[in-house]
């Protein structure tokens, strides 16, 4: 990582202070979906009411998009001192207004405490979670109330568009993006400029520009947070792309399960139109481009380009063979650029800061930064943005704060259902498009699910194949039937019905399904199976040969037992057991009837004496 990354990343907040005046008091409060779930809107309302009550309405309140550290929501940053408060409750508000906003005093209980040194940390940039990040795309969320286009203007919003329209030819734009080395953030990592060039040169009118916001990987929400938190960056990128390829019509395909993203995008599109940045004759240059939002019904396969086109066209979301590329015949059979939301959001940055700046970040083959969603058995759940090439170790331990409950790291699943599981021995892997592919996984859109020693890797593969079985469109045989059969075999293995030869059969099937499937869903569906067999084969063997689940997860292979030494006969477990599987007299050692037991785990959680164990 380059030495000045911290400066680059954190200079953004300083810029904001400049805009508001160095001493201007204002509060940025996270109103992303995660913090909303923690009640941040109530906190915001309470803050505004309290400011009114204490006659401080001159203090501006920004309801921003996701700030990333979702584990600690609701969070707020109080300017000009930039104090970072987390897990804020409504009841904290009067004190915050009186002391911090009113007198500039810090309330230490609301500050983040370093988990090891126990030191309280005052500002965002001091937190280990943020320290190593380079938040050039995502960090701007903290400075914008997405419903106010002025906020985006304040951070040089639409400057890139103005520059492109007034100073650059379409070819120059394409050449700049090519020089930057921008690769698609949606999964494939295809060079964006190559697509653009193809569409620019392709015969056929009209041409279309599309943002793919059909983020559907379990546990991934980078694109949602960008669309919610900084919709104008996506829109600006698309307008620039449209100018480069010669398109006048664009679509943002976003799933309807993202209501806040739809709302904020709609508002942003309207605001851009009202300001002459979208629609007819943009900025008086004669260039016209309009964007329409297309709400998807939440089918995973609709993230695949040709299925996405079919869905926009009003047909069932099924892919078609892609021997003719979308660049030549995409939406309505016309030349089409389809890029992921995050890819588009990178475009204004490249124009503003230059291709050389962009290309200076990252690795040989993967330039710039990447946003990852860090979820699973990790202390700091949230969204991070790091330079390409940051190691898994840095992500999981430095930013992610390690594994919850101090347990042992087992694997990290990257790339969503089409990705793979990466074991501990590869923690030093620099994360970029090519290296992830080399180890049998992929970048995907940037989901990272961290697993500890209580995760069964066969069960993980079973889970993802079950997901893919449900999400396969059903058009071609290898995916529809093959993934289903693989899922059945994995289910058998997890239930103790695995047979000798199953591992080899899964391997052969994986190759045939990947080779034979029509689209990338089937093409990558075997990845979770292949990567877990590759790195955790002994776990499969334990299930099949010894009828044992080493992680103690697979319900058909484990039993719940009571440690006679530890059980005090308190009877708490008897009360929580829904199936009445636990019996025993008070103050005497209890027993569990494993025929009645459903392995729900409620008794383990209830036992204060750690007397119940899984075997």
């Amino acid at each position, binding site marked *: 990582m380059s030495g000045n990354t911290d400066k680059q990343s954190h200079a953004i907040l300083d810029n904001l202070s400049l805009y508001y005046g160095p001493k201007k008091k204002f509060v940025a409060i996270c109103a992303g979906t995660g913090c909303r779930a923690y009640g941040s809107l109530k906190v915001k309302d309470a803050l505004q009411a309290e400011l009114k009550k204490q006659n401080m309405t001159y203090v501006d309140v920004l309801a921003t998009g996701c700030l990333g550290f979702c584990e600690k929501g609701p969070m707020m940053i109080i300017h000009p001192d930039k104090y970072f408060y987390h897990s804020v409750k409504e009841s904290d508000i009067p004190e915050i207004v009186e002391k911090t906003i009113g007198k500039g005093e810090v309330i230490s209980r609301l500050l983040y405490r370093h988990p090891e040194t126990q030191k309280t940390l005052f500002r965002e940039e001091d937190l280990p979670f943020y320290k190593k990040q380079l938040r050039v795309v995502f960090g701007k969320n903290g400075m914008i109330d997405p419903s106010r286009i002025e906020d985006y203007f304040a951070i040089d919003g639409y400057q890139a568009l103005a520059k492109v329209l007034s100073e650059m030819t379409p070819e120059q734009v394409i050449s700049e993006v090519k020089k930057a080395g921008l690769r698609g953030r949606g999964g494939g990592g295809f060079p964006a400029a190559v697509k653009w060039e193809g569409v620019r040169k392709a015969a056929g009118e009209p041409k279309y520009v599309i943002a793919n916001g059909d983020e559907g990987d379990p546990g991934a929400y980078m694109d949602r947070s960008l669309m919610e938190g900084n919709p104008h960056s996506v829109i600006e990128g698309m307008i620039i792309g449209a100018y480069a390829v010669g398109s006048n019509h664009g679509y943002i395909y976003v799933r309807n399960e993202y209501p806040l993203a739809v709302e904020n995008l709609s508002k942003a599109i309207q605001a851009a139109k009202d300001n002459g940045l979208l629609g007819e004759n943009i900025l008086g240059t004669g260039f016209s481009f309009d964007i329409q939002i297309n709400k998807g019904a939440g089918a995973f396969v609709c993230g695949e380009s040709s299925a996405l086109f079919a869905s926009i066209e009003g047909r069932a979301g099924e892919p078609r063979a892609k021997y003719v590329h979308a660049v030549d015949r995409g939406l309505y059979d016309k030349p089409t650029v389809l890029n992921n939301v995050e890819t588009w959001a990178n475009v204004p940055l490249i124009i503003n800061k230059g291709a050389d700046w962009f290309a200076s970040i990252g690795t040989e083959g993967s330039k710039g930064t990447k946003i990852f969603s860090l979820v699973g058995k990790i202390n700091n759940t949230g969204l991070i943005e790091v330079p390409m090439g940051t190691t898994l170790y840095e992500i999981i331990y430095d930013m992610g704060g390690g594994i919850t409950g101090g347990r042992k790291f087992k694997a990290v699943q990257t790339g969503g259902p089409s990705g793979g599981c990466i074991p501990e021995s590869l923690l030093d892997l620099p994360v970029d498009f090519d290296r992830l592919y080399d180890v049998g996984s992929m970048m995907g859109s940037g989901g990272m699910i961290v697993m500890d020693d209580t995760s069964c890797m066969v069960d993980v593969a079973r889970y993802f194949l079950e997901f893919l079985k449900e999400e396969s469109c*059903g058009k071609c045989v*290898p995916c529809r039937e093959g993934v289903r059969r693989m899922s059945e075999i994995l289910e058998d293995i997890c239930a103790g019905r695995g047979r000798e030869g199953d591992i080899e059969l899964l391997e*052969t099937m994986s190759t045939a399904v990947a080779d034979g499937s029509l689209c990338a869903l089937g093409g990558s569906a075997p990845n979770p199976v292949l990567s877990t067999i590759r790195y955790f084969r002994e776990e499969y063997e334990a299930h099949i040969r010894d009828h044992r689940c080493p992680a103690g997860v697979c319900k058909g292979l484990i039993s719940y037992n009571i440690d006679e030494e530890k059980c005090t006969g308190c009877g708490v477990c008897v009360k929580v057991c829904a199936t009445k599987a636990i019996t025993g007299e008070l103050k005497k050692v209890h027993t569990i009837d494993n025929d009645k037991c459903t392995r729900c785990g409620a008794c383990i959680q209830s036992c204060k004496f750690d007397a119940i164990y899984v075997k």
Partner: protein
Amino acid sequence: MVNMIIDGKNVTARKDTMLLEAIRGAGISVPTLCAHESVSRSGACRLCVVEIKKGNRTRIVTSCLYGVEEGLIVNTKSERVLNVRRLVMELLLARCPESDVLQKMAAEMGIETQPRFAIDTDKGKCILCRSCVRVCEEVVGVSAIGLFSRGSYKEVGTPYNEPSDACIGCGACVYVCPTGHIEMTSTGDKRKIWGRTFKMQACIRCGKYFAPVDQLKYISKKTGTSMEELSICTECR
């Protein structure tokens, strides 16, 4: 014309043909289930896969949808190709155990039932090749049947599986179905298909019932030919 090497043989093919035709034209057989000459291609069954080599890159493509290209090196029987075909056949045999067409085809290819796959009992002989759906839309032009649900729950049928007013009872779907899944029964002046009973038209010359009245009405409306003219069967015309 383009020149290619298919299974080591120099083959010349017309520029606008698909690989499948070029391969068959060279006397090499390729199994297919969903490529029917009357409908557009969908690439659903994946049996026609072949391995192509362009430069240093080899990949598997469906020959029914891949256009011929100058200099292409094609292998129709590589290990990767046979591995895909074997899996597809095993999967279809498990899905449609009663299909004699599939069994015959599998036998010819030397493929047996994969004992690890549980046999389906609820899918009939339908392999979801969608030839019926395509013929109904593209040739007949009524789109009375379609595909619904997703993934392994996918099915062919009329909307909500209820008798469809759009269906004209023509039986084109039965004609193109490769496995004989679609049931059509004709007795006297009645024909039953897709849950609907159609009244048949008797030929005004020979008296033989030859087509559903609804079908003739549809043709009359589309072509402007009178019902009287259409009420003569093809043999008497």
